[in-house]
C-alpha cells in the first residue's frame, strides 16, 4: 500500500539531496574557519591588551578603566555572538546531513531550524551594523 502524502508536500530527490549535503559541508568548513579566526582574534586581543591599556592611560588618565572596560565588554560580546552563530551553523550542518542520511524527517527539520537561527543572528548583526554606520554618517 502506498504512503499517503499531503498534496503540497514533495520529496527531496537525489540531486537536491546532493546539493543540500554539499551545502552543509561548506557551511561546516566556514564555521570551523570562523572558529579559527576567533581564536586568532582572542590571541591578538590578549597580546594587544597591555599596549591598549598603556595608550589609554597616556591619553585619558583616570577615565581609562571605564573606556577599557567598555571596549572589553564589546569585544567579549562580539566573540560570544560569533561563537553562538558558529555553534548553530555546525549543528545545522550535522543535523541536516544526518537527517538526510538516516531518513529522519524531524532531524532534518531541526537542522533547517538551526540554519534559520544562524540567519536570524546574521540578519540582526547586519541591521545593527547598518544602524551604527547610519549614526556615524549623520
Amino acid at each position, binding site marked *: 500500500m502506498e504512503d499517503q*502524502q*499531503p498534496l*503540497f*508536500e*514533495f*520529496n*527531496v*530527490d*537525489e*540531486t*537536491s*539531496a546532493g*546539493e*543540500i549535503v*554539499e*551545502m552543509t559541508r*561548506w*557551511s561546516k*568548513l*566556514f564555521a570551523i*574557519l*570562523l572558529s*579559527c*579566526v576567533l581564536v*586568532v*582574534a582572542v*590571541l*591578538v586581543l590578549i*597580546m*594587544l591588551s597591555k599596549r591598549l591599556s598603556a595608550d589609554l592611560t597616556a591619553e585619558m588618565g583616570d577615565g581609562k578603566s571605564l573606556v577599557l572596560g567598555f571596549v572589553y565588554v564589546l569585544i567579549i560580546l562580539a566573540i560570544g555572538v560569533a561563537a553562538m552563530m558558529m555553534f548553530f551553523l555546525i549543528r545545522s550542518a550535522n543535523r541536516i546531513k544526518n*537527517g*538526510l*542520511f*538516516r*531518513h529522519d*524527517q524531524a532531524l*532534518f*527539520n531541526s537542522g*533547517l*531550524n538551526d*540554519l*534559520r537561527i544562524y*540567519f*536570524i543572528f*546574521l*540578519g540582526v548583526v*547586519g*541591521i545593527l*551594523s*547598518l544602524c551604527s*554606520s*547610519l549614526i*556615524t*554618517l549623520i
Partner: protein
Amino acid sequence: MEQQQPPVDLFATPIRIDDTAKRHITALAQWAMIIVITAVIGYVITLIQAFIPSRTIIETEPDSEGFSSFMRMGGQSIAGAIFGIVIGLLINYFLYRFSVQSRKGLAISDIDELGGGFRNLKIYFIIVSIFMIIFFLFGLIGVLALM
C-alpha cells in the same frame, strides 16, 4: 571495534519538504533577503563615507609631489571601498539567488528549483570560506609579526 556507517540510500524513505520544513525554508529565505538588503544599503553608506572625507582633505591639506590630496588619500579610500563593495555584492548575489529560487521552489512545489536555491547557498558558503581562509592567513601573519 570499528563503528559501522549506515548504508547511504537516499530513496529508502525519502525526506519530504513538509509544512515544518517549508516554514523554516521560507523564514530562511526571508532573513537571507533582509541580509542582502541591509548589505546593499551598507555599501551605499560606505561609498558616501568614502567620498565625504576626501572633500575635507582637499580643503585642508596642500598638494604634494604633483598629486592632489584627493588622489593620495581619498582615491585610496574610494578604491578600497569599491573593492570591498564588489566582493560583498558577489557574495550577496548568491544569497539573493538562494532567497528568490527557494521561495519560488516552495511556491510551485518544485524540488529542482529548491535544489537550485540550495546550490546558490552552497556557492555563497564556498566564497565566504575562501575569503575567511585569506582573512585567517593575514590574521595569522599579523599574530606572528606581533610575537
